[in-house]
């Protein structure tokens, strides 16, 4: 039905399903091993529901040691493993295979230790991103990366995908905010990368593990860098009659020497969808809107917003509206962060995630409009404008097979466009299954080969989340290719 191929299930593995299940039940209490077809069904997909595969079984371990026992057992048996956090991946990162066992970290959801003096928090990886901040916010601290799905997504998933968020313009993405991880390797070895210090001796394992899409091991604990929040933060809404003006305004703000905490872009379609849900007071009669947020004490915020308003007016903003209360700010962000889900009110969607050089914004927005129109579809644009990370939402009807195919085609063309103008396929959602077959558009075979060599260090038999990231024709590595 969809264009992306999945490997054929291994009959040898399917044949010993009972034995595999029995082995899992020896290592984890039986109630946490999910085997009935009815119950496996909800685990067949994540937030990219166009792809679905019923897993062999699902197991929900309750400790690092249980994860180690499971991985050691499954790898000995040659069984593929699909790590899963909260299943909010938009790139199909947690999509199972028929001959694979899903290992979910949902039960590992505790805060282990918070050290405000050293500004670190040690957590189990299955905790949600927002739960970390909720836990430390009474003391004025927060964990910076804030993907839109932060309410539900897990730190484990954030680490797998190197997730970003609206506020990473100032604070960086996951890789810039993790000090250490505890990871279980395929053979059950438990290793600690990093720790409580700023940098680590030896190779920068965190760079490799963060963003490895569950292909190196299963992270069960993480030490997060936590930050003291500024005294206050205030977003303003800038409304433009021309899409290009909004794009130019983003560049002008940054060129003027100010880095706001966030600069978010929404086009008219997205504005209407989100306003309907969040009642945030978005201007409905503009072609495009920017949410620009600045931080500091009131006096600082006033100075910054005055400056931003001036730049915005010079760049054609018709509406400048500053949030007047915490409640209003919360509504503004609730609307933005719910953009994807709220789109469900009017259509199904495919969410793209390419990043482009911000100078290319006007051109790329025009081309996206053309591409989508060519495929007789509609698009809602909502994205992190400050860093050029686009999220065109291609709207379609999932019950219409032809529309889904056209939507996928349009999505591919948009991502190729991103690469063409000097950008990349994915800024924060990960390659997953969705962009796997486009990888050769961005990388040469030699580039991919080098990445695969790193993968093979952790997973020589392609057992960990194997059908993702690399096009199927690139694996398994033919004998003799290895040096």
């Amino acid at each position, binding site marked *: 039905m969809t264009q992306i191929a999945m490997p054929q299930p291994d009959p040898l593995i399917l044949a010993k399903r009972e034995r595999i299940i029995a082995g899992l039940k020896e290592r984890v209490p039986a109630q946490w091993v999910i085997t009935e077809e009815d119950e496996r069904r909800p685990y067949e997909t994540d937030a990219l529901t166009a792809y679905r595969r019923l897993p062999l079984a699902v197991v929900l371990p309750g400790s690092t040691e249980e994860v180690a026992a499971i991985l050691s057992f499954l790898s000995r048996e040659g069984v593929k493993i699909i790590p899963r956090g909260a299943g909010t991946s938009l790139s199909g990162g947690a999509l199972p295979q028929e001959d694979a066992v899903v290992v979910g970290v949902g*039960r590992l959801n505790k805060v282990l230790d918070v050290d405000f003096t050293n500004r670190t928090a040690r957590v189990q990886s299955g905790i949600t991103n927002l739960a970390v901040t909720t836990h430390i916010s009474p003391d004025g601290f927060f964990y910076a990366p804030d993907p839109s799905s932060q309410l539900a997504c897990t730190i484990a998933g954030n680490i797998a995908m190197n997730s970003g968020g609206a506020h990473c313009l100032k604070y960086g993405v996951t890789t810039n905010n993790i000090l250490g991880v505890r990871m279980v390797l395929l053979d059950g070895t438990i290793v600690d990368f990093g720790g409580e210090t700023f940098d680590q001796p030896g190779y920068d394992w965190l760079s490799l593990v963060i963003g490895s899409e569950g292909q190196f091991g299963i992270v069960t604990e993480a030490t997060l860098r936590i930050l003291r929040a500024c005294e206050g933060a205030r977003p303003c809404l800038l409304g433009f009659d021309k899409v290009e003006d909004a794009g130019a305004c983003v560049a002008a703000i940054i060129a003027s020497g100010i880095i706001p905490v966030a600069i978010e872009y929404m086009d008219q379609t997205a504005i209407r969808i989100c306003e309907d849900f969040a009642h945030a007071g978005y201007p409905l009669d503009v072609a495009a809107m920017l949410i620009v947020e600045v931080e500091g004490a009131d006096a600082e915020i006033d100075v910054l917003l005055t400056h931003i308003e001036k730049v915005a007016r010079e760049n054609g903003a018709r509406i400048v509206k500053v949030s007047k209360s915490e409640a209003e700010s919360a509504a503004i962000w609730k609307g933005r962060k719910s953009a994807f889900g709220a789109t469900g009110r009017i259509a199904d969607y495919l969410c793209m995630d390419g990043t482009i050089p911000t100078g290319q914004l006007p051109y790329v927005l025009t081309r996206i409009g053309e591409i989508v129109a060519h495929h007789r579809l509609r698009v809602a644009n909502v994205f992190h404008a400050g860093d050029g990370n686009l999220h065109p939402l291609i709207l379609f009807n999932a019950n219409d097979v032809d529309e889904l195919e056209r939507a996928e085609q349009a999505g591919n063309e948009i991502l190729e466009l991103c690469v063409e103008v000097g950008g990349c396929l994915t800024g924060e959602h990960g390659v997953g299954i969705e962009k796997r077959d486009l990888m050769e558009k961005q990388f040469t075979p030699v580039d991919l080969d080098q990445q695969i060599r790193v993968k093979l260090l952790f997973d020589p038999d392609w057992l960990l989340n194997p059908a993702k990231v690399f096009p199927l024709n690139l694996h398994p590595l033919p004998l003799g290719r290895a040096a």
Partner: protein
Amino acid sequence: MQTSFSLAQLADSDTRESEKILRTCVHCGFCTATCPTYLLLGDELDSPRGRIYLIKDMLENGKKATVEVARHVDRCLSCLSCMSTCPSGVHYMHLVDHARKHIEETLPRPFADRLMRAVLATVLPRPELFRLSLFAARLARVTSPLLAALPFQWAKRTVAMLALAPDTVPMRSPYSEPVTIAAEGPRQGRVAMLRGCAQGVLAPEINEAAVRLLTRHGIEVVFAEGEGCCGALVHHMGKQEASHDQARRNIDAWISEMDGQGLDAILITASGCGTTVKDYGFMFRDDSAYAQKAARVAAITRDVCEYVLTLDVQPPAMPSRLVVAYHSACSMQHGQQIKTTAQGLLRKAGFVVKEVPEGHICCGSAGVYNILQPEIAGRLRERKAANIAKVTPSVVATGNIGCMTQLAGAVGVPVLHTVELLDWASGGPLPRKLTKNALFAQHG
């Protein structure tokens, strides 16, 4: 989300509705984060999104419910926290109601389970029977230690049920009969109030306080002839025929008042019941004889707080400054989406109102959930009590009898209905539970 129902399946009204709901869901997973059972269990299957998927699979394929599907749907509290969270506007309530009906119709439950459900469905909606059973429960409680030692779910449920029975059974309320209470002074309005079932037996003081508060402000209150349980209890067990019968009886009773002396509103003092009565329109959408009447009833149904807000209730001359933790019932904040009304009224009435941390998570009461799922309900109660303790209140206020019963023994301070405090602050008598409370004596 993609669906695959046949045209024949879609000919069924419930299935058609469910299909519409499923199509809205984009499977983003936001709902998982605010679901009490997912929070405790960490299993997709015990999250709204997982249940939606289980239900989808069951309905699309026309499958009979399995024990597994029923287990996860049974664990759902119907707190509807997911509906507050859902950005896509998925109407989970109607979907899970449909699933419960499907499960009830297609899954033969074990004998003990059936018996327990039958007892609850028979006793709770009938005030006289329920009253008698409370006396019986007090006697039966001597068996609890024995039962608790048994490894059976039915035994645990029975213990949970017995534990919920109050130590003393209140006197029968004057409002347990059809009656009209005249407004004090010139009549400003006329409302019907749901007499209901269990609440009238367990805590008659709630409706009594509400009546005093309303009549003092010029509102005539009628307890209509023929009304009774709203149907919610059996509705949540998937017993649609019984719930519709009960609802029809109420609709008849209120329509006759509306068409007689007229009603400005139908007031509900238990938000759980309110959520259901407000949904009568949907429940009877395909019933040609009742669709219109049900919609009329639903249209003027209000939580008592919503209505009190429209009255000119003056702040007291001497505010009590009593610290009140407001526990928003799920049916209030999620079911009816009433988020701040009661808190505002209490503040205006001179109370210091504290919001409870993690206030969006259920206390575990959820109708008869605390009897049918005692383990999860118990953990949620402890969690709620710990959160309430963080704001160190003198009293807890809420708008739902289920939560009051659930929290009564767990929080160490009196648990009152919002209208009891509002009544007291505007000239009514001191609530009974406060006079008994030593803590309050200090404040008083």
